[in-house]
Structures are given as C-alpha cells and as structure tokens.
C-alpha cells in the first residue's frame, strides 16, 4: 500500500510538472550554459565590465537569456505644475524592480514568441512586472509610471534599449554578452536561459552571478553601514587633518 501511494504521488507531482514544462523528454538535457565568470568584483578602479555566457543548444528552437539584478523598491514621482512651478505632485511605488535587467534573444527575436510566455518569464522590457503599490487600479496611469521608470533605468545604463543578439560560434555552440555599467548595483544576479520551441519552453537553466565590492571599497562600505559613528569620526578626522596639514606644509 505505501508503494502504491508512492507511485500515485509521483504521478500527481511529476507528470503535471513535465507537462507544464513542455513535451521534453530531454528536459534538462537539451541546454547547457555557463558564465565566463560567476562573479563581478567591484574594486576602486571598477569602470564597468562584461558578462559573457556560453552555452550549447542540442535541440532546435529560439534561445532567450534574461539577466536580472536584485529587486528593489522604487518610487516614481511625476512633476505637475503648481502656481507655475514644476514640482513633484504624484507618485507610484513599485515593490519589485530589478536593479539591473538585460536580455538576449537568438534568431529573429521575440516577435514570433507568444506574449503570455514572454510575460510569464519576464523576457523583454514590455514583459516586466514591477508589482505596483497603488490604491486605484488605473492601468494606463500605472503604465505611464512604469514606462518612466524604465526610461530612467535606461538612462542610467542598467536597462537595455533593445535585445542583445546571441551569436553562434560553431553549430550549436553559442555566446551572449551583456554590458555591466560602472554604476552596477551590488547583489545576487540571476541569469535565466530558455530554449523555446513552437511557443513552449522545452528547457531552461539558471545560473547565478555575484556582484560585490571587494577589498578597500568593501571595507569602507562595511564601516559606513555597520559602524556609522566611527566612520563619521574618521571622516571628520581626515577633514580636519587635511585642512590643517596643508597650512603646516605652506609654512
């Protein structure tokens, strides 16, 4: 009897799972990816870098790679005219905004992919969901704020303007490259790679990337956040010392 239950439970859980993820008998086998480096070290000399993903695609289909930085809560404010002056009047809070986002698509791009699939997996800027925190459900109103947020992130260089290409080096061996700007947010990044065939995901892989300040910068940042008072005193000591020493040198 326990054996039968085991079989039943396996069927209940495993079968819908397999169905949900497409027809793939080869699920987990038709895609292999890795990052050229699993971490980005932010040193004092950091001025942006590149994220390179390599992979092998063993089934035909469209590839999509999505890179997402840690989620943050962002407030978007809109200026309105009050007594002739332009000041912040309205705002919308978004609770889940990736601090960094980029994506790549192979072949003809996302035009031929179903919208539902793009939306579910957050492939492309139109497909992103930021979880707005608003009392009134005015879709157009929220969309304006979300678009403004995306524009702002694009201006900062942490969101793309369009999809990056996926280059095939030889046969099924591919490579995708993303630019990481100088103002790259720290934290744990997730890189999702999807293999899409006839509008279904037939395989996917997740790799993670760690972005952190290292060395001197990390020490300064830790001191500033963990021992703010000591950090502040150190700052004053440096400031007074600098002002004083220049005068001594001049004598």
């Amino acid at each position: 009897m326990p054996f039968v239950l085991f079989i039943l439970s396996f069927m209940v859980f495993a079968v819908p799972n397999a169905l949900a993820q497409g027809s793939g008998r080869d699920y987990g086998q038709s895609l292999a990816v890795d990052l050229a480096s699993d971490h980005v070290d932010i040193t004092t000399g950091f001025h942006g870098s590149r994220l390179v993903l390599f992979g092998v695609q063993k089934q035909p289909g469209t590839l999509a790679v999505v890179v997402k930085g840690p989620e943050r809560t962002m407030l978007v404010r809109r200026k309105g005219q009050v007594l002739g002056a332009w000041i912040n009047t309205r705002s919308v809070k978004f609770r889940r905004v990736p601090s960094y986002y980029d994506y790549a698509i192979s072949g003809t791009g996302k035009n031929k992919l179903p919208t539902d699939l793009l939306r579910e997996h957050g492939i492309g800027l139109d497909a992103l969901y930021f979880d707005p925190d608003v009392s009134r459900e005015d879709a157009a109103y929220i969309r304006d704020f979300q678009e403004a947020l995306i524009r702002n992130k694009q201006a900062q260089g942490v969101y793309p303007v369009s999809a990056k290409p996926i280059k095939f080096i030889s046969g099924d061996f591919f490579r995708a490259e993303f630019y990481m700007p100088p103002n790259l947010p720290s934290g744990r990044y997730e890189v999702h790679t999807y293999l899409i065939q006839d509008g279904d995901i037939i395989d996917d892989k997740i790799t993670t990337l760690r972005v952190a300040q290292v060395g001197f910068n990390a020490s300064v940042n830790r001191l500033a956040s963990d021992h703010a008072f000591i950090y502040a005193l150190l700052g004053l000591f440096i400031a007074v010392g600098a002002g004083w020493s220049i005068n001594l040198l001049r004598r």
Partner: protein
Amino acid sequence: MYIYLPVAEISIPAESVLLLGGIVGFLSGVFGVGGGFLTTPFLIFMGIPPAVAVGTQTNQLVASSVAGSIGHWRRGNVDFKIGLIMMAGGIGGSIVGIGIFTLLQWLGQVDLAISILYIVLLGGIGIMMLTESIWAATHKKTVRDQFNTQKVSGFIAKLPYKMRFPRSKLYISALVPGGIGFVGGILASVMGIGGGFLLVPAMIYILGMSTIVAAGTSLFQIIFTTAVASLLHAVINGTVDLLLAILLIIGGVIGTQIGVHMGRSIKPSHARMTLAILVLLVSLQLSYNMFVRPAELYSTVLW
C-alpha cells in the same frame, strides 16, 4: 582615472571631482564662502545621488573651512567671540536641519525646497550685493564706512543679552550672531552648504562687521556647523562617501590657499561684485529649471 565610490556606488572620473573641489576651494579662499552652492548641483549632475551629494559635501566643507580659517586666523581675521556664539546657534540649526531634510526626503520635495531656498536667498543676496558693490566701486568708498555711520536698526538694538565684541568693535545682542548661526546650521544640513554666502552678507550688513573679518569668522564657525551636519548625515542617513569627500578635499585645500592669496590683492568691492554676479547666475539657472517645463517629468528614487 575612474574611481568607484563605495557609498555612492558609482564610478566617476577622479580628475573632474578634483577640479570641482579646486574651483570651490578657490572661491572659498577669495570670498569666504564655502562654495557648496556650486558643488552640490555639480555632483548631482555627475550622477551622484542627491542625498549623497549633500551628505558628503558637509564633510568636505569641514576640511575647506579648516584650511580657510587657519589662513584668516594667522592674519587675525577671526573674531572668536562672535564665532563661538554663532557656532552654538549653528549646531542647534544643524540638528533641526537634519530633521527637516529627512522629512523633505520622505515628502519628495528636497529638490523643490533647495531650489526655492537658492532662488530666494541667492537672488535676494545677489541683487543686494551687486547694487551695493557697484555703488561702493563708483563712490570710491568701502561698504564698512557707509554702514558704520548708520545706527543699528531699532529692533536689533532692543534685543536683550548685549555683549561687547572687541575684535569687531561691536556692542550688540548675542541673539543676533546666534540667530545668524542657527540659520546657517539649517542651510548646512538641508542644502549641504556652509551657508557662507548668506552668513557673510548678514555679518556685514546686520552685525556691521568688516568684510574680511566676516569672511574669517564665518569660515571658523562653519567648521563646527558642518562637522555636526556631517556626523548626523553619516549616522542617520548613511550618505557620506569618504572617498568622494577626500577627492573634493584634495582639490579644495589647494584651491583655498590660492584663493586666500588672491583675496588679499583683490579689491573688496570687486570681489563682492564678482560673487554677486556668480550667485545671481546660479539663481537664474535654478529659476529657469523650476518654471520651464522639464523634458522629463518623472523621476525615480530608491525607496
């Protein structure tokens, strides 16, 4: 050379920050103003988050005011008695100012408050200084001569707690320098500026001090006001980036020394006229930004 700032979390070209610090230091040396009214907008323009620009600026001001006031002190241009009373008011003002800043940040009106303060204060002072300095230049008289002949206005003369200030040859209520210091302290916290552009004219026109002693004394008391503001910004808001501050300081202390030297050879009325024009330009630019429809109506902030 690009440097990644650990607290601002952004990479910036070090040379441009050094240059900015140098220019601001030069102004500080010549006019006795901190020059923060230029640094904060430029730092924001470089992509430094506004809160970090304001917080860091307070730390840099400590260094530039120490450097500047030592120069003035050696030449006897610091009225310590007035300075200490202003300092007491200034520290109180700093604490109140941090509260205001935090509230404004929450309301999303930091930019508005800073713009209005700049436009009203800079505009008013700029016009006042410009007319006065043109008058002084054309009449071959210094402002001090003119103002000393006038009686201190009735309201100020009636205030209690009168004290003698031998260095400036004044007999005036302690509430006046204390109040001026208090306003300076609020400005230091809210705007990330020393407030010299407001304090120096106030000391000249309200207290009746000479330009050079007003500059020296204002720098002396700005040391303490900005030190308190910097401490509070670092502890409460976590917005002081020391690497950025050090870059500004290095540029600033060099600029200040050159400025102090130059300041001696520049005629006071000409120096005031130049400062007035500079102050008016910043004020006009800010008015333009406030009343002309911005290209981007939306702005975002980490919440």
